[in-house]
């Protein structure tokens, strides 16, 4: 059984459509992020890991009534609480969020107040032991944010240097640009659909960066091999051919990985929702970017350089074994 025998698509011919597609989604994502910034203070909704605050997850025996819960909490003098139903309605679970306290010593009072308020004013039993509480002070949230960002930037730099060494600088740059593109669109998706970014979502983003890089390198590797074999072929044709040759593998791997993360999204439960959403979007965009962003960038660079009378790319072929 074989899917892609003898495919011959002119991928680079579509580059303006690809550019338009990427621009539309990037701009949509960025504008939503700006809108978010002015309305909620951060470009993307942040989970309690990063923004600080208290989140109490309570599972009730009977179906919870948000209004009654809100009255109970108000009665205890807690304002600014946000109440929402959580996960599968059959689980009767509710998420109560309090905003960040400026003073760290009051970190614990929020949780205790909520539990007491519910016990005294709301007549719906719940299991104390099953309560999940996250209280994050301002300091830690902020530290985490800056540290996670720094780690990701360093890792991208590391990859760029390695690719520079194995191929040529433009390959490294193109690959990293493709990764940035993927991250931007994925984070934009979170902004557009108003989904929260938590620490596990950051892990998912790291995964998709790795995946996108993997995909891009496979295409680059084929380009490098073909460059070595046929010096005369015009670059756009060679790149197209390389993509077509690897298409079978690309669709297969992406398809299979996509099925796995889709299964995770559908069956994996509420806690993993943000995580699996990032992966679902990320795998698609990661595959897309190798063909639509990285490859055209290589060709554009070559054409720019040869416009100056210099053939830049073939020297990459000398570096690979």
């Amino acid at each position, binding site marked *: 059984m074989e899917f892609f025998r003898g495919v011959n698509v002119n991928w680079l011919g579509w580059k303006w459509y690809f550019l338009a597609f990427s621009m539309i989604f990037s701009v949509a994502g960025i504008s939503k992020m700006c809108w978010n910034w002015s309305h909620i203070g951060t470009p993307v909704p942040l989970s309690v890991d990063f923004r600080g605050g208290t989140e109490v997850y309570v599972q009730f025996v009977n179906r919870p009534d948000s209004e009654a819960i809100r009255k109970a909490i108000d009665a205890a003098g807690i304002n600014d609480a946000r109440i929402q139903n959580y996960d599968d309605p059959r689980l009767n679970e509710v998420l109560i969020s309090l905003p960040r306290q400026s003073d760290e010593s009051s970190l614990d009072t929020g949780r205790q107040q909520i539990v007491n308020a519910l016990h005294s004013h709301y007549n719906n039993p719940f299991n104390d032991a099953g309560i999940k509480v996250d209280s994050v002070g301002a300091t830690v949230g902020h530290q985490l944010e800056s540290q996670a960002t720094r780690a990701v930037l360093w890792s991208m730099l590391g990859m760029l240097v390695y690719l520079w060494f194995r191929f040529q600088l433009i390959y490294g740059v193109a690959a990293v640009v493709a990764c940035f593109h993927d991250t931007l669109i994925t984070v934009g998706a979170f902004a557009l659909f108003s989904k929260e970014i938590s620490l596990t979502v950051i892990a998912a983003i790291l*995964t998709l960066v790795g995946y996108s890089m993997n995909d891009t390198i496979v295409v680059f590797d084929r380009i490098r091999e073909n460059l070595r074999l046929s010096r005369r072929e015009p670059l756009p044709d060679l790149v197209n051919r390389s993509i077509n040759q690897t298409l079978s593998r690309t669709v297969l791997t992406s398809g299979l*990985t996509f099925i796995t993360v889709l*299964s995770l999204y559908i069956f994996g439960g509420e806690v993993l929702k943000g995580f699996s959403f990032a992966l679902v979007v990320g795998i698609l965009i990661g595959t897309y970017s190798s063909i639509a962003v990285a490859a055209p960038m290589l060709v554009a660079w070559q054409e720019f350089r040869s416009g100056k009378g210099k053939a830049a790319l073939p020297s990459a072929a000398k570096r690979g074994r």
Partner: protein
Amino acid sequence: MKQNLKQRIALIVAVLLVFLFGIFRIPEGISGKALLAAMQKQIHLGLDLQGGVHLILQVQVQEAVSDETDSAAARVRDTLKTGGFTYSQVIKPDPNKPELIEIDGTAAEKASDVRSLLDGKFSNEYDLNAGGTENSWTLTMKPVVEKDLEQKTVGQAIETIRDRVDSLGTFEPIIAPYSLGANQILVELPGVSDLDKVKGLIQSTARLEVHAVMGGDGQGFQDEQAALASVNGALPPDQYIVPCQGDMACHGNPNTVYILGRAPVVSGTDFRSADPSTNSNTGGQIVRFTLTDEAGERFWDYTNANVGKYMAIVMGGHAREVAVIKNGIRDTGEIEGSFTESEVTMLSKMLRTGALPASLVFLEDRTVGASLGADSIREGVTAAVVGVLVVMAFMLIYYKSSGINADLALFLNLVILLGFLGFSGATLTLPGIAGVILTIGMGVDSNVLIFERIREEIRAGKAASAAVDQGFANAWRTIVDTHVTTIVSAAMLFLFGTGPVRGFATTLTFGLLANLFTAVYVSRVIFEAHLNKLKPGEMVSI
């Protein structure tokens, strides 16, 4: 060739066994339950999977610095007094700068003498400078010394917390410096659900006291009756009977009791530090301790008057250790009482951890209810298993018999990865599982790369053996590039990240290394075995 092949297969089986051992060690039995239990002991689950309590505390180290400079200021006063120099005051002018001591009002004509005196006594730890006004001086704690003190304070706080948490009987608590911020401590207690109890326990000032031994001397009484008999049944109101705890006080008899003075001579907050050491004269094991200045005065009065008598260290209402007073002790002293080396270490720890060196502020606390944790594991595992099974089935359909190679390689990959986790004792968290997913993805990718290449070579007309050779050779380059790039990225994440990000980087690196082995070496061996069985001219099923 066949011999070589047999050796290679043996190697692969050996690797499989080694890593299975890493996952299960020696399980009780082969049943599903026994295996699961064995695996749970080896592979540690993070809090987000297991449920438990997660705390981040900040040690207020400036309090420790302040304590230290307080006692230094007292020493300055003493030094100036005994040297016969006048001064108007020795103060700490700025509460926000606890490392700074100011000395005012020294005699102008004695300036150089004052300088050399203070320099001589304090230059190890403080920098002496002329103060802002006439005839005044400042002593500033050296930054190196301050840093050292801060680290020591955090270390002491960790030990104290560990001791207290131990009483909860938690399996595998994590109490460690939190590398994100300065002077922060991470506490993770899997399986514990009562957050308030834990916080109370950690923050409480445990009661450790030194009491005078009034009756029973070093050995104590056999039991309570014997103790009462020694005072004819009438215990004075300022004494009380204290049971023993632990070998050092009980001497093998759990009913041993002592009669102690009710009021403590010294209590927990009076100890500044305690370290194990050896007596240079007798070679015996001793504990060197320091008390705060004020406590030192009290202790001096007491010990001077009671040389040759015994004192008991009481913790949590039990006598833990009884020792003889050898000489007057002010604020530094030694406790000697025929200890072994392990006993002094333990005793020092007990003295040190009796009190928190500085107060703790909670920066973050989370509880994951055990039931919620178990749910997310179950759902995640189900989804992952479904995904992997679909992938495996697909490989069989698409690549026919060669699909088995890929499936075996994938299975072995997971075994090696879990085995790595078991051996290294690393903790598996949700981000770690993300790393596993990426590994599976890249594992599948490697196999697909190789197989597609082999198909290409077959299409180009090569014979079975040559096609396999070329396929592997070509794909190897790509696989090396993708894997090394990702490992470089994981290394950066590990270096610059903490906690969850590190967990991700760790599982990813292990998985990729395993993949390099399985997708190339193992898969190749299986192909060779298969090729050996082919008749000449027959093609591989791919």
